[in-house]
């Protein structure tokens, strides 16, 4: 894939992962990066330089909404939740992802 197309592809994937993680419970940016790392068993380590622009992009599109709340330690943090629009977006992206990954698996699984 050409470089810019590849990064577009990864950006879309990151958006989907973020939406999925935030769907689980309202969570702040730091929590999201921790979760992605934990759940993917350290395969994915989201850089702050990608995470925060993505969060702001998603919030701006109305897929996420943010709210300042106190954390467990009493510190204020920006917690994100998924909006209705975001939920629909996630469903669409997941369907798309299943299709793509299914197709890739079919091709890779072809007996030589």
């Amino acid at each position, binding site marked *: 894939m050409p470089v810019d197309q590849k990064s577009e592809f990864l950006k879309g994937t990151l958006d989907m992962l973020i939406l999925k993680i935030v769907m689980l419970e309202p969570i702040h940016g730091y929590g999201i990066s921790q979760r992605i790392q934990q759940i993917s068993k350290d395969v994915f380590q989201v*850089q*702050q330089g990608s995470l925060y622009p993505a969060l702001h992009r998603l919030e701006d599109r109305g897929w996420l909404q943010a709210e*300042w709340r106190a954390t467990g330690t009493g510190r204020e943090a920006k917690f994100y939740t998924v909006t209705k629009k975001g939920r629909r977006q996630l469903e669409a992206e997941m369907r798309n992802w299943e299709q793509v990954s299914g197709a890739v698996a079919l091709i890779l699984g072809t007996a030589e």
Partner: protein
Amino acid sequence: MKYWLRRILRKERTEHELDSELRFHLEQRVAELVEEGAGREEASRQARMEFGGVEGIKEECRESRRVHLLETFFQDVRYGLRMLRRNPGFAMVAILTLALGIGANTAIFSVVNGVLLNPLPYPYPEQLITLHESKPNFQYGSVSYPNFRDWQKSNRAFSAIGITRYTAFGLTGMGDAEQLNGVFISSDLLPLLGIKPLLGRGLSRRRR
């Protein structure tokens, strides 16, 4: 419209929040590293290194909002144009409505401007008109004095006709010479306009 206004008002808050959000992340990471047994300073140094340039990240966050702003703007414009092309009847009605609205507004403003905002400073300004002599190359040409006399003699349309001509005089004998702008007027003009000179007296018919 409300959407744009809200955006502008929100800008400052967004900036402040962006700062707090990134600072929170950094502090969380430092706390985690300290828990893992690093010294406070060492932890802070490592967290900063992992984080990379804060200003760069901020700029990218701003950018991701700005890009979207432009994108949606162009999308709106494209959508509008597409809809207009798809419904030429509707487009026609919309354009006509706009044209009529703007036209009517301009017309009414010209009247209001002339009558209410800038009326001529004379009694009965609505009865005053300017006459010109149309010539092939001058739509609003000047009037020759003999023609004016003829107009005056055969006039039945107006209660009076006066005439003016712009001129300039040279003022000398008091230091540097100076050009003074003036106007020649016929004796009928001041009574016609219904005004009196501030200084001296008006011209009388007899003295002409």
